[in-house]
């Protein structure tokens, strides 16, 4: 085995980034002076040397066929000397030195269905996950909801008229691949039925101590059933995190009748003004209603609109809510406040209102 491994190339790591930097970037690396936003989706960076770099940013569905990647490469060959990049939010960026090519590129992108925008006080593309396309633990789909929400909110991608940036994200289960827990608005897939233990399978494919130890609330107990070592779930203690299922496939949680989506608001990762914050629960449950999840789209749109109307300049969702207070947030958005909104996990007491500072 060892000699065959040696024959193969391994551990070469990623290509060195320098190979992929446009000449203008190489020449001005670390020597950029300032930037301006020329129009939605178009940035100009000006270097100490006076060189200018134009960036045209467009939204993508993140899930891309090789046919579309080649099409985008063709555009990059024509307009940006064969260089392009992607952002952490799945936008594509073309890097141009010739300002005269900016307009024609925007027309090409728009006609081919790639909206240009996502800069400054806008909604950028949604960070999201795999959902029913590829994941075993999904409580909802990812791409379908993202498509439906962005179809509705695309106007805010293509303009910059919001009070501040608005970062939307979606994760299809509590594993949260993607920083949804610190987003202005996060859509999170949730299970609501405890795992159903497949006794036959479990004793064959899972290690009982591992399964028992996997549960953060100690809801899983070893049990002997019909002479077989297996486990049982104390259902009142289960909060549907899915950790047991991750370590043991014989504990499935997915269930069409109970799975759905929750909505979280007011998180941020940037340190600008307010320190980074977690998103907090706004809506505990909305049904899975494919293909367009109208309830989810309407809920997100409502929150965006109330915030956009009410927030002051530069106020991110969480900063706005902190100013007006949570009672007003629920009042203004018309979202009912329920028992589920009150934390009951560790350190829950720290989230209670421990003063008489109440706006009336």
């Amino acid at each position, binding site marked *: 085995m060892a000699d065959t491994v040696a024959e193969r190339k391994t551990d070469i790591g990623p290509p060195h980034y320098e190979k992929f930097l446009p000449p203008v970037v190489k020449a001005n690396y670390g020597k950029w002076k300032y930037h301006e936003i020329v129009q939605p989706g178009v940035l100009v960076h000006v270097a100490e040397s006076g060189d200018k770099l134009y960036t045209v940013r467009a939204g993508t569905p993140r899930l891309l*066929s090789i046919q579309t990647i080649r099409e985008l490469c063709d555009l990059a060959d024509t307009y940006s000397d064969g260089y392009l*990049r992607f952002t952490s939010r799945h936008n594509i960026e073309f890097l141009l030195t010739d300002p005269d090519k900016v307009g024609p590129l925007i027309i090409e992108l728009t006609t081919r269905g790639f909206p240009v925008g996502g800069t400054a006080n806008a909604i950028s593309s949604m960070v999201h996950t795999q959902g029913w396309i590829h994941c075993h633990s999904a409580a909802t789909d990812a791409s379908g909801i993202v498509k439906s929400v962005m179809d509705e909110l695309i106007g805010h991608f293509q303009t910059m008229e919001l009070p501040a940036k608005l970062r939307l994200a979606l994760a299809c289960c509590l594993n949260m691949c993607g920083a949804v827990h610190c987003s202005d608005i996060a859509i999170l897939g949730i299970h609501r039925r405890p795992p159903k233990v497949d006794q036959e399978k479990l004793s064959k494919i899972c290690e009982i101590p591992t399964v028992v130890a996997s549960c953060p609330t100690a809801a899983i107990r070893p049990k002997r059933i019909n002479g077989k070592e297996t486990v049982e779930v104390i259902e009142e203690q289960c909060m549907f995190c899915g950790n047991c299922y991750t370590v043991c496939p014989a504990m499935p949680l997915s269930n069409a009748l109970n799975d759905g989506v929750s909505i979280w608001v007011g998180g941020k*990762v940037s340190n*600008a*003004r307010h320190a980074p914050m977690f998103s907090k629960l706004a809506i505990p449950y909305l049904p899975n209603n494919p293909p367009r999840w109208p309830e989810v789209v309407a809920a997100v749109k409502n929150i965006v609109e109330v915030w956009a109307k009410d927030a002051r300049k530069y106020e991110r969702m969480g900063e706005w809510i902190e100013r007006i207070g949570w009672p007003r947030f629920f009042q203004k958005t018309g979202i009912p406040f329920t028992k589920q909104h009150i934390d009951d*996990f560790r350190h829950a007491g720290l989230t209670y209102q421990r003063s008489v500072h109440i706006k009336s």
Partner: protein
Amino acid sequence: MGDENKPSQTPKLDELEKGPWPSFVREIKRAATKSPMARDLLGVLELSYEEKVGHWKHGGIVGVRGYGGGVIGRYSDVPEKFPNVAHFHTLRVNQPAGWFYRTEALRAICDLWERHGSGLTNLHGSTGDIILLGTRTEELESTFADLTKAGFDLGGSGSDVRTPSCCVGPARCEWACYDTLNFTYDITMHFQDELHRPAFPYKFKFKASGCPNDCVAAIARADLSIIGTWRDEIQIDQAALKEYTENGIDIQADVCERCPSQCMSWNGKELRIADEWCVKCMHCINAMPKALRPGQERGAVILIGSKAPIVQGAMLSSVLVPFMKMEPPYTELKELVGKILDLWSEEGKSRERVGEFIQRVGLGNFLEAIGLEPKPEMVAHPRENPYVFYEEYFEEEPEAASETEG
């Protein structure tokens, strides 16, 4: 799909081809013109849309020889109906730092993925990798061979160092306080073994942001978050301020009053910043990039421990080193990380992220074990409870007794 006269097999998904936002269904259909896998993916997805549940099973162990990570195994639970996606494994391919490409490189990936897989990708996955979505077990080795031929390698998965990622940094951003691309490439190469051969209690992620705007969400998504900062004075170009006032910025209201430290004053002509109180939040610089720039003594804050909820609840990273110079070969940081990985590998429980480990053993004990001094910058405030642990205490010495005996 298929015969034009037949009714569509995917009426629900077809709905998602409508509307102005680019459609992932169109992408799958595009790939399906060539790939039977993509065709069956469409079928299995339509089934999920009808039934409102997923149809994928756990992967088990699949991968390429000599690697323990980089491939996510996936099998369909309805292989009889959709045999072409009976296996649908994903490869994570380590992206170039900053996600810059030349088109040749992307085309090479498209070509090899046309030969070996579904023709579907994610640009990019949540950790930052290029995701090649869906292939069969027997294709993995040959895909890997073609990938390395094209100059690419697999990224991380499972309990290993996950593919590090970074913001655009000095390549295009005037605010980068260190070279995020160089740093990311450097540690990716430094940790190749740890990245490809899982041997930790759980995953370990690095994310590098060049300034406190934290464009790659390092503070929320990385076990080790390296966030650029400065510690001298914000550079001010008084003349450029004028331009902003003329272009509708109200410096008093929009900048000074929004400063979290309340350390700025504006008299209509001159802006003053009491830098000793500035918390380096970036707001004023974001608002007026032409007039204000980070200081010149630059480095990074090193933070540790953020993660999503699984298992013990979500966490943000917290300060480990308030300021560190970030220059190649990053020896100080590598040494620190080495100590952290050793300790956590040794004492962490299975599926315990380093943040959870620190919560369990206590930050104080953790610092002691890795040889860092406790600093007030590491906490929001000192403890509020009096339940303090001391490892040792004094006993009265039996001095008097020994004297009489002597």
